[in-house]
């Protein structure tokens, strides 16, 4: 028993020594997409018109260095939901997509930045060779990375409709 106690104590000590090593000085923080600034756009439930533009006004921040960001617009006629948005605006009735508008684009951020204000303009054409784009509920999806590969997503519910002919 004495022997057992001695041996177990010393082995346990060795185990603890092993277990207590820590990693140091690496980035453990995700970047941030700030849509609370003045003029922030787009915001949930905003309505935009085909033939005009959406401007992404946001403040991107990171503790070490920002990476890149991308913007994607896709239809939400089936009422799926993004994780980061609040579903509180009235959705139009569900419908089948025929010729929905699709937009996917990546944007660089100058190197060495820890904060970056965007004023990204996105054109909304009225249609393509198949005809006019479908109007209705769309998702405006932003994804931001930092240099180390941490990422943050933000999804915003918007409506894109054709401008009423006066």
């Amino acid at each position, binding site marked *: 028993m004495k022997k057992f106690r001695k041996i177990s104590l010393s082995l346990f000590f060795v185990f603890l020594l092993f277990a207590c090593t*820590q*990693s140091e000085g*690496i980035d453990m923080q995700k970047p941030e997409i700030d849509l609370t600034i003045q003029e922030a756009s787009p915001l949930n439930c905003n309505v935009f018109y085909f033939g005009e533009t959406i401007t992404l006004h946001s403040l991107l921040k990171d503790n070490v260095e920002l990476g890149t960001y991308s913007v994607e617009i896709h239809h939400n006629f089936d009422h*799926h939901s993004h994780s980061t948005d609040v579903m509180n605006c009235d959705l139009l009735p569900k419908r089948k997509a025929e010729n929905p508008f699709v937009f996917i684009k*990546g944007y660089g951020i100058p190197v060495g930045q820890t904060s970056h204000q965007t004023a990204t303009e996105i054109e909304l054409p009225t249609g*393509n060779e198949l005809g006019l784009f479908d109007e209705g509920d769309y998702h405006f*999806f932003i*994804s931001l990375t930092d240099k180390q590969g941490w990422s943050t997503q933000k999804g915003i519910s918007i409506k894109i409709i054709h401008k009423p002919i006066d």
Partner: protein
Amino acid sequence: MKLFISLCLLVLTHALYAVQFQVKGIVLDNEGKTVPGAIVSVSTPNLSTLTNIDGFFQLEAPLSNKTLLLTVQHIGYLPYKQTIESTNSDTLVIELSSSNQLLPEVLVSGNGYLLQKQTFVPLTVQSVSDKELRHYLGGSLMQSIERMSGVSAMQIGSGQSKPVIRGLGFNRLVVVENGIKHEGQQWAADHGLEIDQFAVHHIEIVKGPAALGYGAEAIAGVIALTHDSVPKDNGMRATWDMVGKSNNQLLGSSLQLAYRKNRIFFTLRGTLIDYADFRVTTDSVAMYSYKVGLHNKQLRNTAGKEKNLHTSVGYTSSNLTTRFYVSNMSSKTGFFANAHGLEPRRVNEIVHDASDRDILFPYSEVHHLKITNQTEWLKDNFKVQAQLGFQRNFRQEMSAYVSHGYMPAVFPDNMPFSSSLEREFDKYIYTANVRMMYQFASRFSIVAGNQLDYQHNAINGRGFILPAFTKFADGLYALALYTPSSHTTWQGGIRYDYGSIRTTAYADWYKSPTVESASLNEWDYIERASAMYRQFNAFSWSMGYRYSKDILELKWNIGKSFRMPDAKELAANGVNYHQFSYEKGDASLQPEIAYQLDGTIGFATSKWGIQTTPFINYFSNYIYLNPTANHDWLYGNGNQVFEYSQAAVLRYGTELDAHYQLFKPLSVAFTAEMVVARQLSGEKKGYSLPFSPPHSVIFSVQYQPEKWMFFTNPYIGFDWRLVATQTHIVPPEEITQGYNTLDARLGSDFSFLQRTVSLSIQIQNMLNTRYFNHASYYRLINVPEPGTNLIVNLRMFI
């Protein structure tokens, strides 16, 4: 000659000691055949002899102790240990069990814990019997053996999990079933093992570099599974297993028939399992901050079912045993409906929540067919084993069509695959292994073998992640085992591997814009993978030493391993539907080279035992899916790009196991494990590796009298598991808080209608603790682990 040596020994010992007592016996294998050439030794003083041609041995020992420890070992068998009384003058009948393991190992039986076992080889080997497996029966095979130190299961759902040894899994460890490497789509986190845990009779786990005898991918270790053994007696026998689990209302049944007539035998097993959605400890989960409500705390659409059929037929004689196995495993499992696809879709909760047993979109369906033969031929000290295998792993992942990226909004009706087929993998695997062992009378054994493997993997469906490929691999190895005395063993070996991989080009079935301009005029079918052919070859080696005397057991083992990159690492180029990521392979990756030093220091008596198994492992170029700062805007969905890259990695850790018998039926045990990984170069220098298991300890207590009322072998035990917070994370992981859980188990054998019945009951997570498992596939979307789970398993011998 052997007889002569033993006689000489007898005469010598007789001359030296006046007061003697005699140990004699016969050594048989589990088919009742005699085993010549087995090493029989006794402790204090150290004496040994070999069994003669009739399996008979005789030893004379001085009468210094009341009891003696007798050990019997022979290559190809599990070593045997028994304490004998010095007053015993009967002829002992010792039955050895055949081992699937390359080299012999000792089973320390009886204390009921899944602890480290002693082995006669320098490798760290753990062994689990069929009985222990039922004591700890979980939702899947890996969950059942997860309790062992250094072994963990990457949870995919209630019915599936992936094996992890010391933090490494996927294609860095090998699962062997009846001598043949099990091949599925093991590269992905959401693909489980297609193994029927009822059919598994014995498990051996090798921790550490075992690539020498098992193939290049066995860097972290090997999990070797053996099916129902050869029936011992003539006639028909049946065993019926029933299992029920409260958490996911699982019902399972497995019936086995075994028949033997002299040298011919046959077995048949059928298993049916059906389970509902599993229950977690929360009403809602926060997936990337979006709240998903859970009906009845159930993970929507995680129900599943399994249908397995196995049969084997064989012939056994004194020097030849051959056995054919045919099995088919079918499973259909739902994916958590809210978490599949590029965004959490607003699922139709009314449809999904109407029944918790139905399996709706999205789900996966897997069929695994296996036809294998295992043949063993034995003559004197020479043994040849051959294994031939054919496997087909057919996997389909189904989900409702959703256009993403530039996929058409309406699925065209002229496609060669259905709109709901997200992905399909159809893999054919052909294996041929041969191994020869020769044991020289002078305690020197050699093993040499060849492993041949050919695979063809076809793909289908609307999503693309890896291209179709063919892969060829051949490994030639030789190892030697030298036992100068019963205390020491030396082992060394080398292996040469050659492999090639050929991938097929793949282009999208829909058009995407090919230039960045917003005009969107130039559209084409984008080629995501080009045809590629690569060849690899390397030498690897290992060397080890074992010393064992009195209560001390000391081992070290050092080895170099090599693994060729797989098709996904070389040629992936597609969206991962389970997270916001786009994965890209690198066709110029070099094979992974790993060096590992590991050891065992242990002390054991019949009352207590303590053992630590430290290891240190260095990869000069670990292949790692690195999250980059870039987004893929052209080919996909604006997702973050993850690229396969290589970095030097250092890993180290240890396990610690101890048990102590307070008094006869009551014992306590302690198990701890830790592993640390650090990237030493590359873009993630300083970071750990993904899915690193947190440090953990288990305190347990077990009461195990021999008899209680009309119960035989009853037991009751408790496990208190403490898990530390995991702060060693890499993007996109999050810190996982520590937790502690309490599990209980009890069971017994009893007689019912003149039949033997074994009952085992477990209560997992007794306090219904809410916790996250860092190594769970669902961790990234904040799904906690299952709540309290009552498991009842009944086995009846008919």
